[in-house]
Every structure is written in structure tokens, then in C-alpha cells.
């Protein structure tokens, strides 16, 4: 399993698009031959994956926004990012 460093600056590579699908009324992550359906929290995370923010920064923002324990968010976010990186739909660099 890919390790996600707190200093990584994740972003969606070209060929992967987060978009609102008006016909189905839901958020979709479009990748080559793949359609992923991120839940509301995943969409929040993906919107922050701009290649500028660090994972640490993303976790801080989410902890503040959701008033949730930072440690739990850190674990969840890293797990999600690692999973997407393994599927090659997210670059961690």
C-alpha cells in the first residue's frame, strides 16, 4: 500500500476530472475507463487536492471545517488518497 506523506501535495492528474453530473445529480470522478462516485466528504477532499496544499494543510482545513478529531481525519484522508494513488487517479508528488 502506498504511504502518503504529510508533506505531499496531491493533485488530480490530466485525464482525471472531478465533475458535477447534472443528469444523475451527483459528483463523479472521471478517469480512463473508470467512473468513481465520491461521497460528499471525498468531494471536499478532492477539491482541496490542487497540487499546492499539503496533505497536512488539507487535514487542518477539514478538521476546522468539520470540528472533528484531527487524528481521525488524518488517518481517513491518507487512506483515501493512498487508495486513489494506487488506482493511478491521483498524483501525490
Amino acid at each position, binding site marked *: 500500500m*502506498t504511504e502518503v506523506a504529510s508533506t505531499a501535495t496531491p493533485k488530480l*492528474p*490530466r*485525464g*482525471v*476530472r472531478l*465533475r458535477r*453530473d447534472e*443528469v*444523475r445529480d451527483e459528483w*463523479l470522478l*472521471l478517469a*480512463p*475507463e473508470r*467512473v468513481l462516485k465520491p461521497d460528499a466528504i471525498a468531494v471536499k477532499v478532492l477539491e482541496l487536492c490542487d497540487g499546492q496544499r499539503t496533505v497536512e494543510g488539507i487535514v487542518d482545513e477539514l478538521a476546522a471545517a468539520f470540528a472533528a478529531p484531527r487524528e481521525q481525519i488524518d488517518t481517513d484522508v491518507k487512506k483515501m488518497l493512498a487508495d486513489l*494513488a*494506487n*488506482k*493511478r487517479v491521483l498524483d501525490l508528488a
Partner: protein
Amino acid sequence: MNDMTVPSPDQATRVPPPAPLGMLAELTHRCPLSCPYCSNPVELDKRSGELDTETWKRVFSEAASMGVLHLHLSGGEPTARKDIVELTAHAVKVGLYTNLITSGIGVQREKLEELADAGLDHVQLSIQDALPDNADKIAGLKGAHEKKRVFAGWVLELGLPLTINAVIHRGNIENIEALVSMALEFGARRVEIAHSQYYGWALENREMLMPTREQVMRAAATVDRLREELEGKLVIDAVVPDYYARRPKPCVGGWGKQSLNVTPQGKVLPCHAAETIEHLQFDYVTEKSLSEIWTNGSAFEAYRGTSWMKEPCTSCPRKEIDFGGCRCQALAITGDPRNADPACSLSPFHAKITSLAMKAAAKDGTDYIYRRFGAKPGQARVEITRNNAPV
């Protein structure tokens, strides 16, 4: 053939089908390669009958508003269309995810750059083998493999994501590991190890393409191992060889459920090979809207859902999982498209497909019938003895 009449759905209680996820636009059947496993029909559409630019643009707009997400720009070789950049730009504008399925041959760097600038999302490049000479033999074009290597380099330089597609058959099945290494070397993020499916030209060439069961088992083990080793570096997607399967593939994700094809002339098909089911009537985008065809077209209605099924499918707990497999394969091997796909071990014809596979695999050699214009189904072999193979 009277018992194959399509049951007419009860319009009053009918729920409209969900929107399709993907559309394959076969922009042209023209192609610089002549691969013997080509899934195009044996009788290819001529250039003179191809849809014009404005019609394709309208079809893309209609697809996007229906809810199509992925648009696969395919063929033949889609870049053989002079308007490929204009078509791609339009598809991007209306919000479709654009995937160029290309041989990489005959595409200039400038053209690829224009496509990248137009917003093309992804490139899928075919590779015939890891060994250049054999790759060229399969493609039916000398020097093709080297051109593909150069093309892959441009894709990377332009920052476009790359998938390598390798159709697997007897002539390259021992080289899967080398093919995957080549995909990595070419800079791909994803590779498709797609065992040949026996439709169109591949059906004509079945005896030249079919691997043995042992080869297929070894290939599957290799793919499993490589997938584990390369996790996070390269996604490996596999299309399984169904002549040796126990359960059928959920063909096209279910008939009229997820995807549709538009042929160069604008005929709308539920799958690549649907035209082989002769009693089906297909609609053209030049006559009706795409949405009308998808929702009410008789060819789409014919095998949508499960009400058309016969035993062993009707009472099968997997009928919503694999939808009885492939209609075209059921027709080709059992004579009735409503039968279970004979790839299923529950099919009374299962022994027949296994025996066909084993007989074909026992043949030797790679005397391919190359894809070409002017052939008719079942007669491609006769044609090729008069018109020599391209290599």
C-alpha cells in the same frame, strides 16, 4: 426463426432506461493497420458513407445532454478523419470525457498537439507485441511498432495520460510480461491486457489466434503477479478469454444498459457485433435523435433487461450480474441470441465452445486473414488468397 420475435414492452408501465455511461464513436473504418483480431465488422463502411462533421457534432451534443460521460473516439483510425481536432474540441466543449483510441500511425506531432490543446483527456495506444518484427507482422505494416514508440513519446511530452492496449492471442501470449514492461517504458499509467474476443475479423481468424488453455492459465497468473508488483505504478486491466471461461462476461455491462456504439455511417448499435444478429433493426442518427434511439429503438429494447431470457438464465441467480453474457456469441455458436452465452458452463452448448477453442488452439501457424475493405463475412479467407497479405 419465428421464436426470436422480440417481446414488445408494455409502454404504459415501462420505466425509461438509465442514461448510458459511455459511447463509442467509430468515426471511420479507414485504418493504416490490418490487424487480424479487429473487432470491426468484416464488411467495413466506406469513406463515402461516413457521417459529416456537423452530424457528429450534433450526436456528441445529444450524447452529453443524455448523460454520456466517456466518449471513445475510435474507428478504424480516428485521426484519419480530417476533422478530428474540430470533433474533439466540440466533444470537450459539451462536457464529454474524450478518449482517443489510436494506432498511433499516420498521426503527426502537430496534430497530436492540436488535439491536446483542444482538451483531449486521454490517449489509448494499441501495441501488437513487444517484439517489433512480430508486432509489425500482426499489424500488417512494416515499421509500425517503431512509429508507435515515437508516438508514445509525443503523448508523454504533451502531458497527456497514456493507456497501452494489447490484444492478446496465440501470436503474443507468451510475451505478456514484456508487453507490460513496454507499457511502463512508454510511460503509460494503465495497460489493457485484452484477450482477443471472437467477433468480426477475429472470428474469421479464430484458428490463427486461439491460445491453448494452458497458455491462458499461465497468462492469468502472470497478470495477477504483475498487478501486485506494479500497484501504484501501473493499472493493469484484463479482458478475459471467454472461450475457456466457466461464467460468461457481462457483455457491454448489459445490453442497452451502459453503452452504445455509433458506426461510421451513423447506425446506432448496442455493441460492436450487434449487426451479426440479422433480425434486429437498427436506427440511424441521421433519422432520429440519439436519445429516442437509446430509449425506444427496437434493437436496444430487444435484449434489454431480463424478460427476453430463456433457461438456464431465467432462473439463474446471476442473471442481473452477467445478463446471460453475450447475445452475439450466443447466436454465433448456438444459433439463437436468446440462449445463454455458451461461455457459461450451465449452457447446453458449453461443450461446443470448449471443443471449438481446443480445436482452434491445436492448429498451428499464424497465416492471418488481414483486415481489409471489400470482404464479406465468411469469405475473407477466399479474398485474401487472391489479394496477398500486406506484409
